[in-house]
């Protein structure tokens, strides 16, 4: 008798992955019959059934955080018949990269410990960066405040109350220079979480490097610059989708020519997940976004292998341990497949999905905040077992405020404990070959392909976004999860179960003085710079935006003339217009 299931019997394995099932699952759905080996059949009869007869299982939804039903036990019967492990999963550093993009992974080099950080003024954030680097952090990641994210200067009326609150305020290249004072930009890799105004902020970064005497070709880092997920999830957009996509392609093209070691985009599922999506939706929408950027870059006339090696990704690490690990493994497999089959990439580097991970902010509780240290450690472990290239671990106080230095230090120490004490970095993809993890990986990949087909049929991701498709899918999943919490079919410890009263935590508090200081700096900047030169540069930018030209050279000239971010964004708004979402609730 074969131990592997027969082809006929395998039909039930070919079903698409179950969709979110938080609303209330069919209790038997996770136990549908599947072809068993004689040994497993005997085990069920002789061992399992007598025990179930005496002690039934708990009354509980055995589903992932995303609502996917999970079986009691995974065995060879859960893999497709004829599943060829060496072909389907293979080896790390070789296609389809399920087991990782590097053959030695963390034995060669540990992941980059890159804590996302930024608050108040450039000077205060610079101090935090230098502290984190002195504590063993290995990369920087800039958090910008909301006015910067939305392309407003600190003294704009709409910036009131927001300056320096959620990140650092950057109004011009002068702030960017202060941000990296004493930090050589060829010695660290820098990630910048900026989207709608990404091209202008990147221009500031490039000019700041120029002023340090660092050649662009030596710069290494990442611009988030993923505008599609802004329309889908985080909603920090400025311009309509088409001109926004054009700006993204401008940066991709510029990076391919001028900054070979810099990632001009980090295609992000993080925010999609934070907005309430399932793991599958995070995976599917992120990779489909990636394909959209490839399509638009090809339409620009770039060759796929010219820019694809510089595309990078960013995923969430949520609390369902195995589902997350499977998500990263499926992502690598899918991207390899898409790049080689759909786009005909020839370079191996084009097919390797490199990603950053951040633990799930949305999973943290304001109640009993010290529990968050445990959550973050487990989520970070999932990211490491999933083969991430870099990692941010959230601080325990982040459901309440931006982190204090103490909380940020514990978060960094959590990564160092994982790297140096637990032994998990000793071997590559230690969960590879687990029936459960391989099956989850297959199901997530299959479910994502189903979403790809649906979005392709809509005419691509820009069209799907304009129809509100991913937005609606995510809002539905978010609501179902809230309902599951209310019914206690999902538990958040210390929130809807095991709740207690406790004393409030000391948190970082940012007051309105930051806005006053930034406004004063802007007033001085406007008085001291050559106003006519600024006007000329902004006019040239408007002309470039209105033509087919790449806007990066004109943006660099604006920055060199000390035009502010608000002035640059306003010039582009004049050409491109602004975007307002059609409300969907």
């Amino acid at each position, binding site marked *: 008798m074969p131990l592997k299931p027969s082809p006929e019997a395998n039909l039930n394995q070919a079903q698409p992955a179950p969709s979110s099932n938080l609303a209330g699952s069919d209790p038997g759905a996770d136990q549908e019959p599947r072809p068993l080996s004689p040994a497993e059949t005997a085990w069920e009869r002789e061992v399992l059934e007598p025990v179930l007869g005496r002690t039934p299982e708990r009354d509980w939804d055995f589903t992932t955080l995303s609502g996917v039903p999970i079986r009691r036990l995974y065995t060879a019967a859960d893999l497709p018949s004829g599943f060829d492990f060496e072909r389907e999963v293979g080896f790390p550093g070789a296609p389809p990269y399920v087991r990782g993009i590097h053959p030695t992974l963390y034995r060669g080099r540990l992941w980059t410990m890159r804590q996302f950080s930024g608050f108040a003024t450039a000077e205060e954030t610079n101090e935090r960066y230098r502290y984190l680097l002195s504590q063993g952090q290995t990369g920087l990641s800039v958090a910008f405040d*909301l006015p910067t994210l939305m392309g407003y200067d600190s003294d704009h009326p709409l910036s009131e*109350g927001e300056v320096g609150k959620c990140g650092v305020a950057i109004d011009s290249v002068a702030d960017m220079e202060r941000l990296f004072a004493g930090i050589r930009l060829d010695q660290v890799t820098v990630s910048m979480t900026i989207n709608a105004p990404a091209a202008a902020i990147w221009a500031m970064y490039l000019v700041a490097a120029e002023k340090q005497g660092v050649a662009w070709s030596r710069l290494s880092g990442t611009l988030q610059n993923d505008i599609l997920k802004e329309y889908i999830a985080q909603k920090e957009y400025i311009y309509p989708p088409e001109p926004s996509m054009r700006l993204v392609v401008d940066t991709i093209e510029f990076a391919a020519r001028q900054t070979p070691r810099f990632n001009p985009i980090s295609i992000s599922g993080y925010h999609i997940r934070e907005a309430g999506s399932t793991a599958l939706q995070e995976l599917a929408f992120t990779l489909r976004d990636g394909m959209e950027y490839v399509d638009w870059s090809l339409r620009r006339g770039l060759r796929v292998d010219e820019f694809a090696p510089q595309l990078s990704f960013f995923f969430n690490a949520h609390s369902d341990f195995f589902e997350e690990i499977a998500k990263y493994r499926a992502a690598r497999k899918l991207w390899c497949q898409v790049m080689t089959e759909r786009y005909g990439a020839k370079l191996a580097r084009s097919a390797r999905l490199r990603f950053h991970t951040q633990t799930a902010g949305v999973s943290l509780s304001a109640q009993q905040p010290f529990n968050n240290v445990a959550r973050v450690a487990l989520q970070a472990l999932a990211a490491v077992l999933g083969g991430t290239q870099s990692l941010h671990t959230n601080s325990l106080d982040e459901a309440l405020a931006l982190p204090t230095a103490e909380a940020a230090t514990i978060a960094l120490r959590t990564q160092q404990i994982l790297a140096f004490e637990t032994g998990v970095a000793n071997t590559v993809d230690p969960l590879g070959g687990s029936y459960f993890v391989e099956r989850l990986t297959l199901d997530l990949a299959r479910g994502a392909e189903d979403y790809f087909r649906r979005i392709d049929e809509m005419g691509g991701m820009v069209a799907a976004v304009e129809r509100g498709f991913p937005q609606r899918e995510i809002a539905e999943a978010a609501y179902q999860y809230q309902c599951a919490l*209310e019914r206690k079919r999902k538990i958040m410890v210390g929130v809807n179960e095991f709740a207690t009263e406790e004393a409030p935590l000391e948190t970082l*508090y940012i007051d309105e003085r930051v806005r006053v200081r930034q406004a004063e700096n802007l007033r001085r900047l406007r008085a001291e710079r050559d106003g006519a030169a600024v006007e000329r540069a902004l006019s040239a930018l408007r002309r470039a935006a209105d033509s087919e030209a790449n806007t990066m050279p004109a943006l660099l000239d604006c920055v060199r003339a000390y035009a502010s971010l608000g002035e640059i964004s306003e010039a582009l708004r004049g050409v491109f217009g602004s975007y307002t979402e059609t409300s969907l609730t």
Partner: protein
Amino acid sequence: MAAERKIRVLVAKPGLDGHDRGAKVVARGLRDAGMEVIYTGLRQTPEMIAAAALQEDVDCIGLSILSGAHNALVPRLMVLLRERGLEDVLVVIGGIIPDADTAALKQAGVAAVFPPGTSMREIIEFIQGHVRPAPALD
């Protein structure tokens, strides 16, 4: 006898932040609880919110603020509501509001601050128990 008027709630997201998961979940939860919900969409100024509250004749305004801008935006909204004769509209806030700021917001006229982790039921019951009495219909 006229049918009982449904509680009308304006769910609004002031400030520059776009994280609308909470606002949308609450809007839907209130609707499922039988209230009439008007969601303003993103990036509403206090002026826009006050105008919408007047135009829609709402009983309650639910604000979602996570960015730290509440101290600048909420007191201004409360003044605008008073200027428009809307002082009896129940104003509640959800999001990330430091404990240190709660007293000042209540002083300004906010009825409740719901921290992260608040259940839908708590929000629904609070609104049902605190909106102004419906006008007599006889």
